């Protein structure tokens, strides 16, 4: 132990005097704080209106023209879909809810029905709000506000062939459009295989911050003015809806009531949307559980589905009671996203530092010749490796603490509450408070950072050359960490068979975002118990659980460390 301590002290001295460590430590804090400062500035100055002015100005004629032409295409496609559906046997269009349904029968038995929604509870509410907002904005700014409409379409490709030709590859099965406030925000094209989805996404040219500010402004105007009227209107709609059963009506009205309760001035648009979408889910699952059918006249729920849906319902209800995961409404999504981005910057820089350090730790000694001093010293070589690995762990921990502390400082500077974070584990919700939550989140995020460091360390012991080991480590990590790298591998081996589709689970990218996997899974862990994960239940899911990811990283890291020891202890120093 004494020797190990001595070696560790020496490594510490070396590390403290390494310029690259000092540079990165400064860079991590500086970049996070500068961005946080900018966030704070944005908040203080309130640039919402100027941005809105820019958006509403005539300068962007081309863009508006594109949006308009797309809208025209949408309109015509919509009309076409309407006509086709109505004309078709068993297809109908519900003007009240703006939804299209086609039912497929085999003999007289209903096989399944497909429904395209142009509208839902969200649509009515938002459209009403937006219409009000448009009028208010026109009044406030003295300009006519263009393109203030919200459109959400789900339909099938044969109805949308014109658009498909224009925008996406012809073999897409489904296409989703979302046009909000005239902004072509995004569309999602979904290509459907037998049981898997492959998603292409394109996000509009407007920056998120611009859109957010416009939305928030509009939403604020709506809620300040006449939110209760909107709810009353919706209540009337539900009551008068003859297509709804009593149970469905009850659920919809319950959802509406809770939604109204959640309607608060301090909520922003996105968080409100998130909350309301949860209610949508809640209502759907409740209806399904009560009827025992996936949809009216649709297939029965399996036992497993009943179990899972019950748990989901319970989770949502628990969340709503405790204010978890944005259910409570004090959830500022734009702050949270920026906050997450801040964390990612810190973590990303720290990861580069840890990789470079790992790659240098052994190689540097060999390159400078200082390895001779180490070998002549009366210490066994495995102790030298241990000391170096300990240093790697130390630096990783220091970085984690630094990122966490800077993040907390950033929250102070920018005046952000980076979100109210609640775990839902099984059927119980726990509130951690932002400090503890982000401490745990940051520590979890540094598990893969350390994993990468171990990889670089192994490369360092194998290559024994600083330039080479940095290049190989950073190159490998950046290649396998990017989704394009994974797609490349998957495309090379082919993704059509079950085995290769699930092969991606065993690729590093599927397991290295440990913090995301961990916290997502904790929130949504109602699907799988720990036992399920242990018993390889994860094989059936689309993604891995945190336990698997942790085991995956542990096994690989242990291998890296084993190779490092073998290479350092057994190989000759020529």
């Amino acid at each position, binding site marked *: 132990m*004494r*020797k190990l301590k*001595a*070696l560790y*002290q*020496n490594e510490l*001295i*070396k590390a403290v*005097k390494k310029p690259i460590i000092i540079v990165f430590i400064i860079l991590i804090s500086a970049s996070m704080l500068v961005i946080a400062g900018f966030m704070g500035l944005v908040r203080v100055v309130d640039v919402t209106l100027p941005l809105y002015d820019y958006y509403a100005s005539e300068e962007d004629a081309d863009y508006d023209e594109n949006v308009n032409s797309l809208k025209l295409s949408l309109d015509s496609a919509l009309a076409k879909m309407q006509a086709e559906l109505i004309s078709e046997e068993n297809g109908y269009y519900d003007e009240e809810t703006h939804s299209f349904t086609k039912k497929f029968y085999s003999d007289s038995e209903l096989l399944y029905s497909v429904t395209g929604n142009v509208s839902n509870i969200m649509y009515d509410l938002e459209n009403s709000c937006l219409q009000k907002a448009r009028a208010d904005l026109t009044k406030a700014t003295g300009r006519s506000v263009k393109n203030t409409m919200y459109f959400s379409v789900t339909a099938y490709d044969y109805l949308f062939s014109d658009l498909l030709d224009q925008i996406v590859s012809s073999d897409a099965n489904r296409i989703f459009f979302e046009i909000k406030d005239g902004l072509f925000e995004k569309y999602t094209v979904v290509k459907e295989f037998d049981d898997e989805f492959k998603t292409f996404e394109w996000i509009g040219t407007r920056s998120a911050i611009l859109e957010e500010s416009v939305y928030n402004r509009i939403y604020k105007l709506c809620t300040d003015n006449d939110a209760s009227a909107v709810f009353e209107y919706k209540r009337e709609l539900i009551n008068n809806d003859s297509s709804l059963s009593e149970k469905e009506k009850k659920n919809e009205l319950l959802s509406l009531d809770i939604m109204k309760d959640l309607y608060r001035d301090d909520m922003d648009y996105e968080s409100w949307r998130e909350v309301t979408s949860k209610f949508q889910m809640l209502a759907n699952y409740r209806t399904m559980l009560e009827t025992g059918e996936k949809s009216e006249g649709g297939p029965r729920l399996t036992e497993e589905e009943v179990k899972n849906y019950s748990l989901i319902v319970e989770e949502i209800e628990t969340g709503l009671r405790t204010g978890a995961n944005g259910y409570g409404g004090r959830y500022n999504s734009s702050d949270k996203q920026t906050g997450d981005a801040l964390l990612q910057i810190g973590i990303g820089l720290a990861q580069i530092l840890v990789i470079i350090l790992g790659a240098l730790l052994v190689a540097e000694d060999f390159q*400078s*010749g*200082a390895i*001779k*001093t180490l*070998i*002549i*010293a*009366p*210490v*066994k070589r495995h102790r030298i490796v241990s000391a170096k690995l300990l240093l790697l762990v130390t630096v990783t921990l220091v970085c984690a603490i630094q990122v966490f502390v800077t993040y907390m400082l950033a929250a102070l500077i920018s005046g952000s509450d980076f979100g109210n974070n609640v775990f839902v584990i099984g059927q119980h919700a726990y509130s951690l408070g932002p400090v503890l939550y982000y401490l745990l989140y940051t520590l979890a995020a540094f598990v893969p950072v350390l994993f990468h460091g171990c990889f670089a360390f192994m490369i360092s012991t194998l290559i024994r050359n600083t330039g080479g080991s940095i290049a190989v480590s950073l190159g490998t990590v950046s290649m396998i960490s990017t989704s394009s790298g994974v797609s490349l591998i998957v495309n090379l081996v082919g993704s059509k068979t079950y085995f290769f589709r699930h092969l991606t689970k065993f690729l590093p990218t599927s397991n290295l975002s440990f913090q995301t996997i961990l916290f997502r899974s904790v929130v949504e862990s109602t699907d799988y118990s720990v036992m399920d994960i242990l018993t390889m239940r994860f094989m059936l899911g689309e993604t891995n659980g945190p336990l698997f990811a942790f085991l995956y990283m542990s096994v690989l890291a242990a291998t890296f460390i084993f190779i490092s020891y073998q290479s350092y202890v*057994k190989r*000759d*120093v*020529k």
Partner: protein
Amino acid sequence: MEYVLDVKNVTKYFGKRRILNGINLQVRPGEVMGFIGPNGAGKTTAIKVILGFLSDDGGEISICGLNVKADYEKAMGLVGGIVENPDMYKQFSGRLNLEMYARTHDNVPEGRIDEVTAMVGLENRINDKVKKYSLGMKQRLGLAMSMLHKPRLLILDEPTNGLDPAGIKELRDIILHLAHDEGVGVLISSHQLAEMQNLCDRASIIVNGDIVAEDTLDALNFRVNGEPTHTFDVDDPMASIKIINDFFAETEAEGARHSARCDASTGSVIAAVDSAKIPEIVRRLAFAGVNIYGVKASKSTLEDAFIAITGGGNTIA
């Protein structure tokens, strides 16, 4: 007798090539052992195997009776060394390098760093960064490092590289002091054969991975050049030869008796006598009326021995 270094039958392969062919090497306490051989003979490889840079492929190494494999840390704690060039952390000061190295040892007392620094004459520059050092200064620092923990065995690979003449002399004084006064066993490899001659008590010569000779310098000389001789510059060689041979007849037993001979080219008389017998011989020659112009000891060098042993495959086993 316990050797500070006892290398027994050590073999080393690089791939399929055998670099060390079962070498044996012993260093006694208080003795300076020269380790010499042509380039590529395996000197540095042998030193690296002893110091643990390279694993051996057979054989046994003990330091002060401790088996290196069984008692690595204890054994290596008794060794100090420089291999090839003394490379250290160049971005750090000489003192920090010494401090870091001292930490890995159990028994470096406080003040020892100043002591060794003064010993190698680096006290004025010890706080400078090593990257500002000249090669000679680095050698001094390396030497200071290797002496830091008062080792029982010092292994120095080409320690005079880059040293100026004063530095070489200081190094020699330090090594001789360590060996003869403090009883440290020293193994030095060097190409500076003249320097080695001044320094070494014994030498071991390695050729193609084999130790071909290991003995005191005198003994090595004897093997190559025979006994040491003296040359008598006289005006009457024949009379002189008779007088000297008579002297041999009186003082040496029959069978092991030397005889003087005449060097035909110079007309001098050459006889294998040691210095102690010179005054008596001179007295007898003078008494017999021979004029003596000079008496010179024939000096054969380690270099001669080295070349004779290693050169042209003329090896003495």
